[in-house]
């Protein structure tokens, strides 16, 4: 089963990488007011139970994939 985790810097957290990207895009002529840079983790999971997968992914995020102090996360499990 495929799943995707999106990890984002929480609102209000300074994101210097996002600022650099925003400024570069403006240099290229794009009207970008803000850019925030996060991380995508694509996973291939064993098992076929989406509920169970979701619970596992929640624990993966809490323990390793995100730092809850500064990052939020969003889980999606591919429906097949």
């Amino acid at each position, binding site marked *: 089963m495929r799943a995707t985790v999106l990890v984002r810097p929480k609102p209000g957290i*300074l994101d210097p990488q996002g600022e650099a990207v925003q400024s570069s895009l403006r240099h290229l002529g794009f009207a970008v007011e803000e850019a925030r840079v996060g991380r995508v983790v694509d996973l291939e999971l064993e098992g076929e139970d989406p509920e169970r997968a979701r619970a596992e992914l929640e624990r993966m995020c809490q323990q390793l994939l995100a730092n809850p102090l500064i990052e939020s996360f969003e889980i999606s499990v591919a429906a097949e």
Partner: protein
Amino acid sequence: MSESRTRPRIAVVVFPGSNDDGDAVLALERLGADAFPVWHGEPDLPAADAVVLPGGFSYGDYLRCGAIARFAPVMGAVTSFAGEGGLVLGICNGFQVLCEAGLLPGTLRPNASLSFVCRDVDVVVERADTPFTTRAEQGQCLTMPIKHGEGCYFADDELLAELEATRQIALRYADNPNGSVADVAGVVNADGTVFGLMPHPEHAVDPLLGPSGGALVLGSLVDAARERTFAPA
């Protein structure tokens, strides 16, 4: 008791990607400890009076600095050691590992400038009453090198207020090099027995080679480890 028994034993953990472990061992030896490396894959710590997590780039800094190292087999033993009141010092990447492991509050993020910063900095000693700072005086300015890309200390407003109230900010930058909140350069845990800092004391112990402010930090640790081990019960 032989002379060597008055030297406290200090374990320096080596992760894949650590690169300041050698200097940490040499500096601690020079300051009067029996320092020895411990490989991260060890499930147990050999008998030690203190533990140092050195600088470097453990596990290539993948995901977040220190995020993977905190799950190294030896970290279970380090966490137990800290839980029993054992002295633990984390330098640079070691500080990041301690934060990720939850042994220290807050976290370290990419420098606000996004640049890797490598130079000597002045830090002000806010607490001279921790086992890591007794050789210094409160308000004293120490010069030590920093070399990091992700040393921007972050704690949210609530946590920061708590750290200020409990005086857990042990070191502050005189001139903030990386965007850390409240100029934080080093923090201790609530008991003052676990300390993490971004500057490198192990690179600043010999006046022949530059500033020697680090000798006060590591010397304090050696003193504290010695007292704990050899003081009459």
